[in-house]
């Protein structure tokens, strides 16, 4: 195993990891504000990718407009989902909430399959330039670089949003204690809706990025499942954790895949490695790197 190969693994892991980070960010935003575990995060990404495809390729809208329309669509969808499905579930046990988002994921997935079919669709025209650049002696496609930068921008924007904007502070307050937040004049209902909207937008943008690089097909929702290793590693309610966790998981899965291929002659480790890490992390440090530890009082 050469250093070149190792570096290549790390860099491609970083790129895919940055997408994981974006989706994990969406997941954490919802979990932090509403304590809802969203098993439909990958489907939000998938819907974003397909809607953008519809505007861009099927209706020939210019890219910037398609992106705006996708974001708008994501917002409306998220508001509907929050109002119709999640609002009635407030106060229900965790298994009901998990199941309701699983139900939602099934509905979204089959809606997408019913409308667009299951074949691979490719974005035309490509958003990013296709040329190769050399980084540290490695040829890397420019679209990967763009994708990575855009994910970083997305993460930075939302970290700043949470830290300094009024809505961001209100969301953090709600996450901390809903009753107190409400008594301070924050509309908890609006915060719930807002967190779903932001989450859908972030995942939707992630979907558009993926669509540009790999093309889209009906198995895109798998990205949503990778969110669990990423967020558990980072800590379920930490934005920074989601960002780092996504990238670390992206790199780890690539590295372990490379190692097993080279030394153990074992292929396909990529699919399972993140979950093995997940179990290990849960055993050692269940609240992740930056998560808040639950303290229970009787």
């Amino acid at each position, binding site marked *: 195993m050469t250093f070149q190969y190792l570096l290549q693994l790390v860099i491609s892991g970083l790129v895919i990891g940055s997408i994981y980070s974006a989706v994990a960010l969406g997941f954490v935003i919802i979990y932090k504000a509403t304590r809802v*575990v969203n098993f439909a995060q990958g489907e939000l990404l998938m819907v974003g990718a397909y809607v953008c495809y519809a505007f861009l390729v099927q209706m020939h809208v210019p890219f910037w407009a398609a992106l705006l329309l996708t974001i708008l669509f994501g917002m409306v969808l998220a508001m509907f989902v929050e109002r119709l*499905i999640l609002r*009635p*579930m407030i106060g*229900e046990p*965790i*298994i*009901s909430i*998990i*199941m*309701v988002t*699983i*139900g*939602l*994921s*099934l*509905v979204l*997935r*089959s*809606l997408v*399959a*019913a409308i667009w079919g299951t074949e691979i669709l490719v974005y035309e025209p490509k958003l990013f330039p296709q040329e190769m650049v050399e980084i540290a002696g490695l040829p890397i496609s420019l679209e990967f670089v763009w994708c990575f930068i855009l994910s970083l921008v997305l993460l930075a924007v939302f970290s700043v949003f949470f830290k300094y904007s009024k809505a961001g502070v209100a969301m953090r307050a709600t996450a901390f204690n809903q009753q107190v937040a409400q008594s301070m004049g924050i509309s908890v209902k609006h915060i719930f809706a807002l967190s779903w909207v932001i989450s859908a937008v972030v995942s939707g943008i992630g979907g558009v990025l993926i669509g540009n690089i790999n093309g889209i097909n009906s198995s895109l929702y798998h990205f949503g*499942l990778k969110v*669990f*290793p990423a967020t*558990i590693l980072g800590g*379920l309610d930490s934005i920074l954790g989601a960002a780092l966790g996504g990238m670390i998981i992206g790199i780890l899965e690539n590295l372990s895949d490379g190692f097993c291929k080279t030394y153990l002659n*074992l292929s*396909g480790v990529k*699919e*399972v490695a993140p*979950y*093995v890490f*997940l*179990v290990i992390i*849960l*055993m050692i440090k*269940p609240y992740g790197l930056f998560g808040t530890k639950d303290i*229970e009082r*009787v």
Partner: protein
Amino acid sequence: MHYCGDFRTTYRKDMEIFQTPFIKVCLAVFLGFLLVLPVLKLKGEYLLKGEYLWILLQILIASIGAVGINILTGYTGQISLGQGAFLGVGAYTSAYVTAKMGLSFWVGIPAAGLVTALAGMVFGIPSLRLKGLYLAIATLASQFILEWIFVRWESVTGGSHGITIPRPSIAGHTFSTDRSYYYIVLAVAIVMILFAANLMRTRTGRAFMAVRDHYISAEIMGINLFKYRLLSFGISSFYAGVAGALFGHSLKYVTSEQFNIEVSIVYLAMIIIGGLGSIIGSIFGAVFMILLPKLLSVGTEMVSADFPSIARLAISFEHGIFGLIIILFLIFEPDGLAHRWKMVKAYWKLYPFSY
């Protein structure tokens, strides 16, 4: 019939599992019905043929699996997203024991149960430290890890080709038809469901429920959390293993696709729709979730002549309808069909003075 409530005058009476003669008669009639149903003939033809008999068979198998996951999730409160994979462990174990080692079905089924129980307990170890959401995610991981093992461990599982397994035989007689195999499954199902119903009335079952309702209080009252959680994982996985093995023998063929995450979701949906923490609810849920695809396909066939586009949409939307039903049940009937059943019973108990 009791007109103003049940009166129990002895402890013995109070501890009976089937409390009234009426219930006993109902149960006997129902079991008799299940016994004769496959051999009933109408004008020289079997009443239940082909697909319908198959559905009944699958309902019985799913009932065992659903009771299993209800013991873990409904009674002990440990959410498991790995039931599908545990069914798979059972099916592969029985396949290996019967097809590759050449042992009898009667060794394969208990072996499937025990191996799956062991696997379940291994993956249940995180439950010592984790609960709720974290445990759900851990079991989700176990689902993917086990699925991966099914595909990669080719010397045992046959990889992506799967294994062919035989139907059971006793003393030279092979239960090769669905009709004869049905009776084996029925017998196993009755024994296992009765065992579960009784288990919940014992010390162990009550400990499970205490762990579910408030695990800290349970621990303070001297219930060993780790022991009972692990035990619950073990028993639940035993049921999953037996159900998986029976399923494998019914198909005569085992591959990894039969045990993916969607199966886990279907089983969770069964107990949510049927009713968490209810044996009869598990059975209702199994009936509902096995019948649903069949009803959907019958429904789309009926409209396909007049509205072909709707039918085409409905076929591609089958999983979506699953999802929709799960959502609707959670919002409008969170206690499941078992709760509705209880209310119907209560209504008729004092009919026509049910107010």
